[in-house]
């Protein structure tokens, strides 16, 4: 089965860079995403289509409907720009709730670990609030530039998708509510 994984978050936080870093592509050539990009990834017996959403506000209203049907949403922020973290809670979470619903499985990623400025306790507080509203699976800090934790992020994505696959096989295609689990 093919699973849809959506990457969302403000423009310039590094969503495309994370995907390209995982695919072994040169991230220096990454430019702003126009609308939405798709990546078909087959690994470890899993097949996923990653939907890489543009972060720019101009595109948001046009493309955000495409979030519907996402098995997993990866919310990315920039560890050096606090507003990108706040916008996860103020803006992006609202889209996830209204389009995908509160049962949506969510992974939060703080990218640009190499230039991190936001204190951990501030991040924890926001993560706590996100976890109260969706099916929050985990939080990871990454650096696409240094390729740090990128493979762990995708490993976690595949784990969640595999778990979802097992549950879907057991329950059929009815309502999905996957219990939280540590990775």
């Amino acid at each position, binding site marked *: 089965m*093919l699973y849809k994984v959506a990457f969302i978050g*403000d*423009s*310039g936080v590094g969503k495309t860079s994370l995907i390209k870093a995982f695919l072994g592509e040169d*991230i*220096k050539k*990454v*430019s*702003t995403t*126009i*609308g*939405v*990009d*798709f990546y078909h990834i087959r690994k470890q017996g899993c097949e996923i289509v990653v939907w890489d959403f*543009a*972060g*720019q*506000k*101009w*595109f948001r*209203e*046009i*493309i955000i*409907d*495409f*979030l*519907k*049907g996402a098995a997993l949403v990866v919310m990315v922020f*920039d560890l050096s*720009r*606090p*507003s*990108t973290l*706040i*916008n996860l*809670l*103020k803006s992006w979470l609202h889209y996830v709730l209204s389009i995908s619903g509160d049962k949506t499985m969510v992974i939060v990623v703080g990218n640009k670990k190499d230039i991190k*400025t*936001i*204190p951990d*306790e*501030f991040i924890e*507080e*926001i993560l706590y*609030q996100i976890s109260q509203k969706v099916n929050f699976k985990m939080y990871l800090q990454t650096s696409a*530039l240094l390729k740090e934790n990128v493979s762990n992020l995708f490993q976690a994505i595949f784990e969640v998708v595999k778990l979802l696959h097992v549950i879907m096989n057991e329950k059929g295609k009815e309502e999905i509510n996957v219990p939280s689990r540590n990775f």
Partner: protein
Amino acid sequence: MCHLGIFDVQFMCPICLKNVRIRVKAADTGEIRRVAIRHLDHVIIVSYDDRGLVRSLDAIRISHQSCDMVDRCPQCGKEICFSFPNENICEQAIVHSDHVVIIYSIRRRYFLEAIELVNEDKEEGYENIVSRICERTSIDYMAYILYKALIEEDKIIFVPKDIVDMLNDLFSKITELKRIVFLPSDTDIEYPTTTAFFKEVVKKLLKLPNQDVITRLNQTVLMLKKLVKMLAKSLREGKINMVCEVFVSINNRDLKETLLLLLREKISNQLYDVLNESCRGLEK
């Protein structure tokens, strides 16, 4: 526009909807740089990339100094006083001479950040070519022109005489489209009014400065072309269900219609009929 590492960046303030132009230092390759601009009771934090493209705009209200909490500015060390508002999560700004201190707070946790303050460039007026075309015709007509240009790339389009030059000028800058030539027509031009998606795009463009209009138009054209190309490719590969799911997920009826119209030009009638039928089945 970029001269020797200096960019002219234009955008519309998300609070007072005023056009703003600033002259800023280019960001390093791959870097997102931020500067602050002071408006009446708020500051705008502009994030832009190494190409001078505005990635995000955040408007933050200027805080009235009060003394619930005292700390020091991370840039100049000056004492700052602020209070925790009732809101769960809050951003406040305090303007110092050449920088702005942003206070990010969630419940009673907070942290401070200093961002360089730049002045607005007020030398020249702003013009908006789309708004001028709409004044002489209508928003509906401009939307129709956009739609027609996308469908009929690389062709000649006849339009009213008094907007020929403006359209040729505008479309010469929409580099994502193949060259379109606009020629004057002596007769009245009739046009359909079914291009609601483009009407919304035109409405959003009306207040932007020209530089922004060109960027947004190029991005919109590129996005639609990319989506249609992806959908057409998937259909040819037999992934009809995937394409149907994309269409079913689109709540915006106008966007759905526009994509279908554009897709119709790229695939066979037979494939289009199969798509229509499958989508109807999925919607049920």
